[in-house]
């Protein structure tokens, strides 16, 4: 449980980090909170020759609101998300999600950007990002681009983040007042990844679903957006039957891998059950 040798760099600015990334190319890895990468390196599954630690770059930190958009530095930790008054008020889904990630110590180190950029289908932020309609700022030495969360996650450990790019910021439109959200996660114990989890964002108009977004964690090669389920709910009243139908549609897109948490059938069923739980809770939280 000892990593292979590597060189270590702790740049203080984004341009410095980008320069190092360009210099070392494939041999470099970016270090954020390190709680995915360092264990992989200790097991010698990952063996980067150069490790670029983003921890000293101040501009990658912080949570602020800017004209109806929440702007979160990619190196903001889960613990900072949890204790953020701004997020508790304006985006409680992110707080709820962060509270369900790993354990307290890991949340002091683990970062929102690291969780997203890693592309692990078991990570929780991707589903939250999808339902919140987030977008990501990706910087390269040649410039920056802003890509929507929807479409960013393309496969297992595969995202639109290109070699030479650093995710610097997460942008989330402040959910409209009255929006109900929920992240329902089934896990074996604290510290585990989800057996299955569902994120829901819901806006009601009277008894009718005005807008809804549903995303699923760890039941496919990457996070899944349950569009058919969303479509089945939109513009209609929400009741046991419509919730069950949405869950059925959500399950229909699942393709989980069997592991110690359960087989594909169970995980698929749990994606449905978590979808139901999340929809009911989001409904109870939504006002209009």
């Amino acid at each position, binding site marked *: *449980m*000892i*990593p*292979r*040798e*590597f*060189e*270590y760099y*702790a740049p203080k600015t984004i341009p410095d980090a980008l320069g190092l990334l360009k210099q070392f190319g494939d041999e470099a890895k970016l270090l954020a909170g*390190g*709680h995915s990468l*360092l*264990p992989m*390196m*200790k097991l010698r599954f990952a063996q980067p020759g150069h*490790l670029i*630690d983003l*921890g000293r770059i101040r501009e990658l930190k912080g949570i602020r609101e800017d004209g109806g958009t929440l702007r979160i530095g990619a190196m903001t*930790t889960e*613990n900072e998300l949890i*204790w953020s008054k701004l997020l508790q008020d304006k985006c409680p889904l992110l707080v709820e999600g962060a509270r369900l990630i*790993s*354990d*307290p*110590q*890991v949340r*002091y*180190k683990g970062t929102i950007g690291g969780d997203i950029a890693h592309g692990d289908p078991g990570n929780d932020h991707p589903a939250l990002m999808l339902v919140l309609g987030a977008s990501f700022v990706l910087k390269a030495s040649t410039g920056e681009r802003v890509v929507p969360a929807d479409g960013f996650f393309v496969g297992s450990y595969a995202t639109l983040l290109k070699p030479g790019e650093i995710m610097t910021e997460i942008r989330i439109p402040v959910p409209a007042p009255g929006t109900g959200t929920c992240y329902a996660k089934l896990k074996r114990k*604290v*510290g585990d990844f989800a057996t299955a989890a569902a994120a829901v964002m819901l806006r009601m108009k009277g008894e009718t679903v005005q807008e809804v977004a549903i995303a699923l964690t760890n039941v496919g090669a990457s996070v899944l957006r349950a569009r058919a389920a969303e479509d089945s709910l939109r513009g209609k009243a929400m009741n046991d039957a419509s919730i069950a139908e949405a869950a059925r549609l959500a399950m229909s897109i699942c393709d989980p891998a069997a592991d110690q948490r359960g087989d594909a059938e169970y995980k698929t069923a749990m994606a449905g059950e978590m979808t139901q739980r999340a929809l009911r809770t989001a409904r109870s939280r939504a006002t209009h």
Partner: protein
Amino acid sequence: MAKKQAVSFKLNGRQVEVLVEPRELLIHSLREKLQHTGPHIGCETSHCGACTVDLDGMSVKSCTVLTVQCQDAEVLTIEGFEQSGELHALQEGFTQEHGLQCGYCTPGMITRAFRLLKENPSPSEEEIRYWMAGNLCRCTGYQNIVKAVQYAAKKMSSAHT
């Protein structure tokens, strides 16, 4: 071999310097080079919390932190809790409430509880269980650990009033 780097940080209030390979883990620097064997190694995969130390106001698992990341940091380990011969309220609480048996998880538990009480000075049982869930114990079943943290919370709050 990757070039060794000198890293200096404050350990329990004292400035220290270690010469390490970039890959050296903080737990190994503390235990092997700085003679602080209070934090223990239990799982090496950042699940058990036996290696917990306080790093710049955060509880972290020092098996998953590189020493080179600690330049200019402030690190607190179990060895820094007793002050001028006086036990910290948490150390007292763990004894009074029988919050330990084999003692292996205890330094990590106390160090974690220290940061928990800084963030939440009077936690409920449920909150203690939630915020202590990064530390595993095989002996106590946690019930007396909860009591130990409550003991310390009470003692610390009465000291402040």
